[in-house]
Structures are given as structure tokens and as C-alpha cells.
């Protein structure tokens, strides 16, 4: 467990450093301004990963991480204003770019399988993604309008 935690920290910090620099180049946020927010995010992740190991229920760690993130940033939570202020400096897109850079490298391994897909599979796969996206958007639009939110 301790060894696990140590390695999570190392990997999250490596990732955090890369994203902090991306955040600087892409969004003009100097690293000094982004570091407190990045540390908060890393601590939220660690808390979620550790809780997932401690609680013997099969719930994915991202669920705990999301809940912790929501709770500590709710106005009622002590210090939440600071947490929100700091994490605002870390742009979502700056976190997404390194994820997809690693993903691009990793999906090379699926390329041989991908090449074997026939054209019909590709056509259907495109409509599968389009179908869920447009289907969900239409329902959301109808309900949000009925509620008067948009």
C-alpha cells in the first residue's frame, strides 16, 4: 500500500509538471500561479485512490475522486473559496492534452487490430458514436427547454 502511494505520487507529479508547462504555453498561466491548484488536484486524486483501496466495495476510484472534488469545492466547505481560486488556474484543456499525448502513443498498439477492421465496421462505428451523441443532445435540449433552463 505504502509503495503504491509512493508510485501514484510520482506519476501524478510527473503528469502534473507536464500539464503545468502546457498550461503556461497554451494559457499563459505561469507555473507559480498554477502550482497550488495542481497540488490540490493531486491530493484529491490521492485521497480517492487511497479510499478506493481501503473500502472493500467495487466502486471505481474516479467516483471517489469526483465526489471529493465536489465536496471540497462546495461553498459550505471550509476553505473552498481558496480551492476554487487555485484550481481555476489549471485549465481543463491543459490537463487533457498530456492525457491524449500518452493515449496517442498507447493506441499505436491497437493499430494492427484497427487496420483489420473492414469498411463496414468503420461506417457503423461512426454512426454508433454519432447516434449516442445526437440522441443525448436532443433529449437534453427538450428537457432543458421544458424546465426553462436554456
Amino acid at each position, binding site marked *: 500500500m505504502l*509503495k*503504491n502511494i509512493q*508510485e*501514484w505520487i510520482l*506519476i*501524478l507529479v*510527473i*503528469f502534473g509538471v*507536464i*500539464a503545468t*508547462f502546457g498550461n503556461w*504555453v*497554451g494559457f499563459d498561466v505561469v507555473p507559480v500561479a498554477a502550482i497550488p491548484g495542481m497540488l490540490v*488536484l*493531486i491530493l484529491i*486524486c490521492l485521497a480517492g485512490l487511497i479510499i478506493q483501496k481501503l473500502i472493500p466495495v467495487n466502486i471505481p476510484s474516479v*467516483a471517489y*475522486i*469526483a465526489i471529493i*472534488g465536489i465536496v*471540497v*469545492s*462546495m461553498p459550505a466547505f471550509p476553505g473552498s473559496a481558496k480551492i*476554487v481560486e487555485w*484550481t481555476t488556474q489549471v485549465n*481543463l*484543456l*491543459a*490537463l487533457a*492534452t498530456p*492525457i*491524449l*499525448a500518452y*493515449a496517442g*502513443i498507447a*493506441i*499505436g498498439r491497437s*493499430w494492427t487490430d*484497427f487496420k483489420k477492421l473492414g469498411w*463496414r*465496421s*468503420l*461506417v*457503423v*462505428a461512426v*454512426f*454508433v*458514436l*454519432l*447516434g*449516442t*451523441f445526437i*440522441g*443525448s*443532445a*436532443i*433529449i*437534453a435540449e427538450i428537457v*432543458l427547454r421544458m424546465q426553462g*433552463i436554456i
Partner: protein
Amino acid sequence: MTEDLKNVWKDWRLHAIVFVIVLLTEFIGIHKFSVGPGIILLLPMLYAILIGLGLYFTPIISEKQAKNAEPLIVLGVTLLIAKIGVIIGPSLEQIIAAGPALLLQEFGNLGTILFALPIAVFLGLKRESIGMTHSVAREPNVGLIIDKFGFNSAETRGVMAVYIFGTVFGAVFMGLISGFLATLTPLHPLSFAMASGIGSGSMMAAASGSLVAAFPHLENDIIAFAGASNLLSLSTGLYMSIFIGLPLTEKLYNVLSRVKDKNAATNKGA
């Protein structure tokens, strides 16, 4: 697991390469161009995924590095989720107010069946089409299909095909179409934000990122709705498939294939 992770953080070459990709792509920045009335947004994350994939085929990246990249994606997504959490927190009231829309749009995932299954059957695919179109085919659904139909079944071949497509091109595809459709159609960006949460971290990031780039003044609302919807999809998606999606797909497949066979028979007769 521990031994693997040790090799992962020690793979400095991999991290250095990603560092360079990130600096380069963020430096290039966001580019937009119009296609008819819609706008296509090119985001740094889209260049990053394509550069990463391209490098895989050069000696710069070895098989080992490609493997080591996988846990980085998983932990990177946890950071993304933490960030989404702290965006949802302050606007939790607003999310709860939009609760009915959030819950009901989960049924939109069934749109894939109504939309894609007829096309699959029309293209002449057999029972593969059940695996292909019953859901967006992320990991839990691959598990469901293998569990139900067996590893060597046609259904499993189908679900794997869509899974592989989603793995390789899902994020790029969602990133390109979400900004485009949101600028092209009269639907509200927040509706598309909810639709972005289809149960895959990278696809959600690409789809909602593209929306944020197109509608910067709605940034926090877009991320909060997309994130909340993605969490719902992750927690309800599998049950939706087990109880509604898969039975519906099988029923509809039987109807469609009967219609197709009948048509084929008539055509031959004529």
C-alpha cells in the same frame, strides 16, 4: 502492478517525449475553420493524439513505451476528474436543478441502436451488428457482450470492432464533431455538453473541450454538465445496456433482419 508502475515512472524517455509533444501542441494552439455554417475546431489535444500515434511508428517510441503510457492515461484521467469535481462543486445547485435533463439524456445513448443498427443490417452485417450497436462499446460493455455471448461469438467480434475504433479515433472524432454540430445545429451548447459525457474520459475531454473552445463564455457550465453526465454514464451505463439496450437491440435486429430477408426474397422472385 507495483513492479509495472515502477518501470512506468522511471521511463523518462516517454515522459520527455510527451513533454515535448505538449509544449509543441500548446504552442500551435487552437485553430478554427468554417465548413458551411459550422465551425471545425482543431485543439492541441487532437494534434497531441495524432503526433503520439505517428511517433509509435518511428524508432523514437518502442513497444515498451507504448505499454508504459497506459497507466499514465489512467492517472491523468483521475486529475481531469478531480478538476471536473471542483468545477461541479460551486455550481452543484445548478446541476441538481438540471437533474431531470441529466438523467433523461442518458436514454439518448439508446440513440445509437435506433441510428446505427439499421445501417449495420442494411450493410449486410449479421449478429456482429448486435455487439456493434447496443452501446458505445467501452470496457464494461465489451465485458458484458463477452460474458453473454462468449469470446468467439459474432457479437463479440462486433463489439470489439467498435471498441477498437473508439480507442483509436474516438477522441479525435468526438472533438471534431462536437464543436461542429454545436455551431451548425440550433441545439444549445449545454445540451451537447451533457451529450459529451458518454462514459469515456478522453472522448468526453475532447468533445467538451471543443465546446469550450467554441463557446468560451460557457466554459464552467459546459465542463460541469459534461462531467456530471459522464459520471452518470459511468455509473448507469452498464445497467442501461443490460436491462434496456441489449434486449432492445436483439429485438430490433430480429425485426430488421426478417424485413431484409423478405426484401431479398422478393427481389430474387422479381
